[in-house]
């Protein structure tokens, strides 16, 4: 499993990177591996409110449908529209293929370093 040290991680298997005032959010390598082949993704719309700890969309794999849980509270600034047509990109490279970008962030969940997240995955795996 690959967990880049430059990112922060949530307990719900999302990663977050800070680009100025914007929070960029995606799912981790562990998450894409557990999900298996992703076949559909539902995304919010630009301008929607997202809340830390609550679902902002969902991904469907051959196995199951899973909620995407936001690690931050804020407003959706951008969505990765490419994923709507090619959700398999999440399997190919979950870090290069971010899911949403959030602005006006007012709250952020407690996040982990790559090392701490790797430990969490070790116990869950």
């Amino acid at each position: 499993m690959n967990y880049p040290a430059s990112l922060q991680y949530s307990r719900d298997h999302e990663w977050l990177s800070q680009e100025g005032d914007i929070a960029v959010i995606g799912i981790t390598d562990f998450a894409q591996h557990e999900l298996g082949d992703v076949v559909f993704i539902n995304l919010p719309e630009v301008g929607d409110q997202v809340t830390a700890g609550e679902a902002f969309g969902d991904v469907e794999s051959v196995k199951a449908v899973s909620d995407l849980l936001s690690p931050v509270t804020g407003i959706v600034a951008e969505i990765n529209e490419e994923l709507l047509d090619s959700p398999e990109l999440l399997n190919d490279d979950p870090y290069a293929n971010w899911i949403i970008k959030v602005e006006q962030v007012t709250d952020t969940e407690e996040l982990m370093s790559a090392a701490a997240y790797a430990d969490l995955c070790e116990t869950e795996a």
Partner: protein
Amino acid sequence: MKLIFEKSMPGHRSDLLPALDVPAFDLPASMKRAEKPALPELSETEVSRHYTELVQQVHGVNCGFYPLGSCTMKYNPRIDEETAALEGFTHVHPLADERDTAGCRKVLETAKELLCEITGMDDMTFEPAAGAHGEFTGVLLIKQYHKSRGDEARRKIIVPDSAHGTNPATAAMCGFDVVNIASGPDGLVDLDALKAALGPDVAGLMLTNPNTVGLFDSNILEITRLVHEAGGLCYYDGANLNAVMGVVRPGDMGFDCVHLNLHKTFATPHGGGGPGAGAVGCKAFLADFLPRSVTMDGEGRLQVRSFAGNFLVVVKALTYILTLGREGIPEAAENAVLNANYLMEKIKGTFEPAFDRVCMHEFVLTLDKYKKETGVSALDVAKSLIDYGMHPPTMYFPLIVHEALMLEPTETESKATLDEAAEIFRKLYKQGFEDPETMRTAPHHAVIGRPDEVRAARNPILRWKKEE
């Protein structure tokens, strides 16, 4: 194999239509089609061979063991089909005069009486076409009840995380907000989580008991009491009634309404693509909100489906209940539970149950540890079972169990079949350590190997199109 359209040969014909026994009617020119429809052209022999070939591609209860958890794939006696094929039932017209349909109404009334007795309900409708439609109708009863009392603040329906996916979908379709509550480590409803979710904004709770992991929620009386105390109603999803029918009644557990999958629990092969019947029963105080039907009329009643619903499914259910009788119905449930426990005990020591306690009609194995040790997943084991002529169990469900395989042997399997199945599971368990590659590429002897499920989900081709 080829599709029936691909087998078409210009000029091949079947004279299957009976002679016209009513006056011919000539349609107005504006309603006639200008071109012939693109129907396949085949002789009767070719059609017969086509469908026989299709039958040979699939696995049914008539072919072998079918322990597909959560689906109750039991064998349905032929007599249920025979009564449903009686001309008095099949040739009746839904608009026929009342005096000509007395027998059909008697069937509906008797079935209602017996199913109300089995569920502990006071009234019932047979209109809904299947389970999800029944759920929808049942939750609308709850909605209408609150509305009739001017209590419009109840916007939420509580659904445990072990529920069938249709439960939250139903609540959402009825306009409610879905509140998911987590199960406890024992797989049952977490009472503290339930208490925290209850309040003046809760319309009701949807619950399956025994639940989706095959466990009977022993706190059920406390659960329904808490919901009622908070002003909500309790909805019973009858998906798993096969485990308790004739033994314990949803009405006595404190439920206010219930749906039954007649096409699952009470004869009619399940999973055959329909038709089904999602009968909805309720306590007397909800009866005024039931849809209008043959046995229920009156001001303000609306229908959820045309005419009497899928009437012949009710004929099969009634035949099933009458042939099994007051002794046979609970015996079927007891044997379903006994068979599941027997099979679970026989497999134990290899693949491990997710919850190590007495189960009801089904049980869940978790292959989490096994997958880490061997690299063989629940999917690989499921696919390997096909080579032994067995239908795989349900996979990756319920979601709360990792690498889940869910087995429901049903009451219609013999000890010999269960012994044989357990032996196959034990053999595959060992094979995972010795020769995982064969399992990862299974099945090897089936008509269809591993279909490309990802491509099928991403780019489904659902319609045949004529090549230009």
